[in-house]
């Protein structure tokens, strides 16, 4: 046990002191602090309106009315539709003149209304998320309906009531609302994917470098392979968990602290993660980490030179990517409680991600979660022992890349 703690401490401290760890953690923490404080910063420095990123000036839109619409009413409708950041005004210029005006930049766009349901839109550049055309359509339709209703003799109040009608609705969700949970599930899966991959590969390269520098030969004659492997995997794992806690902790505390300044719906849904989901995330992170770290560690100990590492860890990475893709496809397909998905959520290499998706987005019976966690926990034990054996035997496996049969031979117990 003492040796295990010696290895554990060495690996943990080594990891915490490493530049990569410090830099990545610092960048992420600072980034998150900035993001959650953005609202506050805007309010403090930018006044009540906040900062206006992008264009500083209002978009100038000119309207030429050639139709039977009433000029004033048309302008009023457009002004209501284009309220924020637009300066809408009427013009007498012809279409050709308007083209030149837009081209020269004196106006950003122009609308020539030829008939109640016909217009020409003149614009210099159409942005990626430009919705102006749809808004113009809306404005035109509204104006048209207004005109039609007015012509049929309806009073102005009645028209306003009809056009301004709204629907009240309530939604009762008996299972999970996937529109609510999708975003945070997606982000949680992405974070798990990245962190597990990062730390899994870290374990692989750490074992591989111990092997290529022959440190292993000294280590293995001083300590049991079990202590070495578990100490290493747990040491790096704790560093990973610490990093995750630091990053997520900063995010949660920062959000709570700045809650009233944040009006971004996406952020709000993200931080609206239920506590149970947060707890499951940590549980599946730990299980997934062990399952993959042991496999990565075993792959790393089969390497004789660090250059061969990428080839040998590829099968493990493929397995992991398969799990990731399965969870993403399940999420986007919305079929997280289907048969295939249910089966995958019990396979140890898929379960950490797939079961988490089901917990977040599906309606999983508790016993299934419990069984999946149990299967994963047993797998961790089995993989740990096998990995220590491969590690032990891998010490002397130098030279050619090992064949599958060599690896299988290793899995038999060794006495020393």
């Amino acid at each position: 046990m003492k040796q295990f703690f010696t290895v554990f401490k060495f690996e943990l401290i080594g990891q915490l002191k490493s530049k990569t760890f410090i830099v990545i953690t610092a960048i992420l923490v600072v980034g998150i602090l900035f993001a959650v404080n953005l609202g506050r910063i805007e309010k403090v420095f930018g006044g009540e309106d906040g900062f206006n990123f992008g264009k500083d000036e209002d978009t100038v839109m000119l309207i030429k009315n050639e139709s039977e619409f009433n000029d004033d009413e048309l302008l009023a409708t457009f002004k209501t539709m284009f309220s924020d950041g637009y300066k809408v005004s009427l013009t007498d210029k012809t279409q050709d003149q308007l083209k030149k005006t837009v081209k020269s930049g004196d106006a950003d766009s122009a609308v020539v209304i030829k008939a109640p349901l016909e217009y020409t839109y003149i614009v210099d550049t159409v942005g990626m998320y430009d919705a102006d055309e749809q808004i113009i359509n809306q404005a035109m339709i509204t104006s048209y309906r207004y005109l039609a209703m007015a012509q049929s003799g309806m009073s102005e109040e009645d028209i306003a009531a009809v056009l301004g009608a709204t629907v009240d609705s309530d939604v009762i969700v008996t299972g999970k609302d996937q529109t609510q949970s999708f975003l945070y599930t997606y982000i949680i899966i992405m974070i798990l994917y990245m962190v597990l991959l990062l730390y899994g590969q870290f374990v692989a390269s750490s074992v591989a470098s111990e092997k290529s520098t022959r440190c292993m030969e000294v280590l293995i004659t001083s300590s049991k392979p079990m202590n070495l492997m578990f100490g290493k995997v747990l040491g790096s794992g704790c560093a990973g968990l610490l990093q995750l806690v630091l990053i997520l902790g900063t995010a949660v505390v920062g959000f709570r602290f700045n809650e009233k300044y944040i009006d971004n719906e996406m952020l709000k849904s993200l931080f609206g993660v239920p506590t149970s989901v947060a707890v499951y995330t940590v549980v599946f992170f730990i299980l997934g980490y062990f399952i993959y770290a042991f496999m990565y560690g075993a792959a790393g100990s089969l390497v004789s030179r660090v250059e061969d590492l990428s080839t040998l860890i590829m099968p493990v990475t493929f397995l992991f990517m398969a799990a990731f893709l399965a969870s993403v496809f399940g999420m986007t397909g919305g079929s997280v409680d289907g048969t295939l998905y249910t089966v995958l959520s019990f396979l140890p290499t898929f379960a950490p991600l797939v079961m988490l998706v089901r917990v977040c987005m599906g309606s999983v019976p508790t016993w299934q979660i419990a069984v999946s966690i149990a299967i994963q926990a047993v797998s961790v034990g089995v993989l740990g022992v096998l990995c220590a054996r491969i590690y032990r035997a891998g010490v002397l496996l130098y030279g050619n890349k090992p064949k599958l049969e060599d690896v299988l031979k290793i899995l038999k117990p060794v006495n020393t």
Partner: protein
Amino acid sequence: MKLEVIDISKSFGEKQVLNGINFTVSSGEALGLLGRNGAGKTTTIRIIMQLFPPNSGEVLLDGKPIDIRSINIGYMPEERGLYPKKKVLEQLVYFAELKGASKAEAVARADKLLERLDMTEYRGVKLETLSKGNQQKIQLIATLMCDPDIVILDEPFSGLDPVNAMLLKDVVRECIDEGKIVIFSSHQMNYIEEFCNHIVIINDGQIAVSGAITDIKHSYTKNKASVFAENKGAVADLKKLIGGFGFVSETEEIADENTAGVIVTLGDGGISDLMKALADAGAPVRGVTAYEPSLAEIFVDYTEAES
């Protein structure tokens, strides 16, 4: 303490690497494992270190099968085993802690050894910034960190300059004086000759010769004498003269450019007969000694003859 290697054999796949290796070392003794590249020295050491088991035979410590992790043993592998990216003191302490030392003990021991080997200035730097020879010294320190009873050094001298080799020799000699068992492999005969009481020459996985160096030399040099001439010019005549003596079976010029003399293989006579005959003939001779081959000559002789 007594370490016995009894009849060890090992094969990797079809290839028989070791065949019937036997030797014994006791506390305060140094044993040199000699052999050409690929002879099986490192394999023997790795079997002692239990990195893999032998196919047959056993390694005993004081009559009981050895358990490498429960005894105090320092092992310096052939291709060094340290962390290039870690600081020197950090990893020395780690290796000692794995062997059961407390942190304070480990730091104190590391400082002592660093000073002994003139390496104190590198205490806090990363290993990879050190020269190869200095890394080697750190490796030796790592080996001695647990104050081992048994020290096993695989090719400890490779890559050291003469000054550092001298320092290493002193440290190894101290280990012997402290009553440790020292086993080391080398193909640099001069070092082995200096402080090994016993040698084992391994050739093609088998013991070509083993025993105390003096005994081996004696058995090897029976009936040979070196006759030194006044100068290089006189050697040819001297050789002719000695060749004419009835009790001499063979004469050979000393190959060394800087030594003038003849190596004489005596037939039925002894060295005193040779001296008498030379005196009677009034030959231009500076001196006569029993011929003592260097270890290197014995080594080459045994390993070449076998292969």
